[in-house]
């Protein structure tokens, strides 16, 4: 077990830079999830930590040792790949034992390690099968078994569940959670699925276009997104973002429509350009008199537990989360109120969060 530290790590492929000055400390035993849209550099970060890609700049430490020039096999890490990367011609047992065999571990000891991992992952009945005779979920488990037998200092997961169907994904997610709690091994987990990120992470790293947007506990990130990007990326459906100018007790959008700001809500100074953010669940129907804005419903999604109403406000798409039994249809005009504490402000230039006192 060990700490994994990235200091000012950057990476370029030829002339294109894909990672900019990344700093990250993964504490011993911590489960950190890196999340971001496709192509933002998540896999690249993981591959640099694994030693499969050299870093262009900066330092990577594992367990207090700088590993920039250390071969992958000597970094004491184990990686689980998205497509499992099981050796097709080897049985499950051989797949798990291969790394140990190369390291020259005695046969009896290998058998012991494999048996233990198989037990944890409930693979005991499958040890003599070939990967092609396994289901996707079982292959995924074998891939994790191959990582576990090694007793590594850290696990690296690269979208390990994205090839599974939705139901299996939920199940495997719970298993990974349980597993990581039992093993307590430092883990870095890459995904573009924010539900995985929210549920698995002790802390999550939100990346965008090669830069870290925010690092924090999942709920903190959800409640206090550090940038408009994070606000839009974390949360399903995403936070509603409206760009405009702050006026007297109101916020005027680009095309002239107005959002009335509730008394006591924090707000940028009069006349400032800003982005107002509000989550779909923090918009509640109220009487016309107290309404901050009125949205004409265009489409309705009934999810069972709740209902999503979509509309357009001043050219911006907006979503409202309503109770399951809400009676509405396309064309319904919803008068919506804002909760003072649940309004987020972002700087339109830097896209960063603006922390403002109430007023």
């Amino acid at each position, binding site marked *: 077990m060990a700490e994994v530290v990235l200091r000012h790590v950057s990476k370029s492929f030829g002339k294109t830079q894909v990672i900019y000055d990344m700093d990250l400390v993964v504490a011993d035993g911590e489960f950190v999830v890196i999340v971001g849209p496709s192509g933002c550099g998540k896999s690249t970060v993981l591959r640099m930590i*694994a030693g499969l890609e050299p870093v262009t700049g900066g330092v990577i430490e594992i367990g207090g040792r700088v590993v920039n020039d250390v071969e992958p096999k000597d970094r004491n890490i184990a990686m689980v790949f998205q*497509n499992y990367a099981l*050796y097709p011609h080897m049985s499950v047992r051989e797949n798990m034992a291969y790394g140990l065999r*190369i390291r020259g571990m005695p046969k009896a000891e290998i058998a012991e390690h494999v048996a233990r991992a198989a037990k944890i992952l409930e693979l005991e009945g499958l040890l003599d099968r070939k990967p092609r005779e396994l289901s996707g979920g079982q292959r995924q488990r074998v891939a994790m078994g191959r990582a576990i037998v090694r007793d590594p200092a850290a696990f690296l997961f690269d979208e390990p569940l994205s090839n599974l169907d939705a139901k299996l994904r939920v199940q495997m997610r719970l298993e990974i959670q349980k597993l990581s709690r039992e093993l307590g091994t430092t883990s870095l987990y890459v995904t573009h699925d924010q539900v995985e990120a929210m549920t698995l992470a002790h802390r999550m790293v939100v990346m965008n276009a090669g830069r870290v947007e925010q690092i924090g506990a999942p709920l903190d990130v959800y409640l206090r997104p550090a940038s408009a990007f994070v606000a839009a990326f974390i949360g399903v459906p995403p936070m509603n973002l409206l760009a405009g100018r702050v006026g007297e007790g109101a916020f005027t959008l680009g095309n002239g429509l107005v959002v009335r700001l509730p008394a006591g809500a924090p707000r940028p100074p009069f006349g400032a350009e800003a982005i107002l953010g509000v989550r779909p669940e923090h918009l509640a129907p109220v009487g016309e008199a107290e309404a901050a804005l009125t949205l004409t419903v265009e489409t309705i999604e009934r999810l069972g537990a709740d209902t999503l109403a979509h509309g357009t406000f001043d050219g911006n798409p907006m979503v409202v989360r309503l109770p399951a039994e809400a009676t509405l249809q396309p064309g319904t005009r919803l008068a919506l109120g804002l909760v003072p504490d649940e309004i987020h402000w972002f700087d339109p230039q830097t896209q960063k969060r603006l922390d403002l006192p109430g007023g």
Partner: protein
Amino acid sequence: MVEKRPALSAAAYAILALGVAIVALPVYVTFVASTQTLDQILEVPMSLVPGTELLANYTAALTSGSERAASAPVGRMMVVSLVVALTVSFGKIVISLLSAFAIVYFRFPLRMFFFWMIFVTLMLPVEVRILPTYEVIADLHLLNTYAGLTVPLIASATATFLFRQFFMTIPDELAEAARIDGASPMRFFWDVVVPLSRTNMAALFVILFIYGWNQYLWPLLITTEESMYTVVIGIRRMIAGGDAATEWNIVMATAMLAMLPPALVVLLMQRWFVKGLVETEK
């Protein structure tokens, strides 16, 4: 066939039967001739009923060859052919596996240059470069040796190209997983790449064995001693003396014997061969 129409089926069978006849009839005539005495063969028309000399002809061919043409025993030629065919197939497979592995899995300077160099040799089979190659082999005093017979045939790139294409279909993650597991490149080669290439190797072996066995021009050029004749050359030398001097019954027996090993290889490797051509184990 998707449609089931009697007329169509009949036509299809007729064409198939014709095809089989075109291939099988000459083989049958050869076989019949190899069971007759020389006099019987020279009768006009030749009888198409097998004769009684089967054992005598084949024994004669295997142990002493054609006496009139003063050839070596066919048994010896079969051994030479077998050594050549096996050396060529194994040599090619080993060399192409290794070079394809280098080209696909290693980044080294001029990698693409070397790839294209190898690729270009596809256009230069032995027949095209036969004179300079002969010169080289002669200068190296390799005429009438196994090395001279096989090395120039091994040096070509068909198989390298095929293995390269196959290796590129193996997911990169497999190599990365092996790297993390601690496998050195050669270990990865032995433990993963070679086992995964088994069916391709088998298919290639069949093709190359037949290729090596049927070589004509090159062995003809560089073997002058009877003891280094391959079967194919042996047949050619046996009929060199003109019609009257040729022991056709022995020649036909030799031809049948020459056909045997490739046919056996195809039969025995059929399962693997088909598997290698149609499926990849990934």
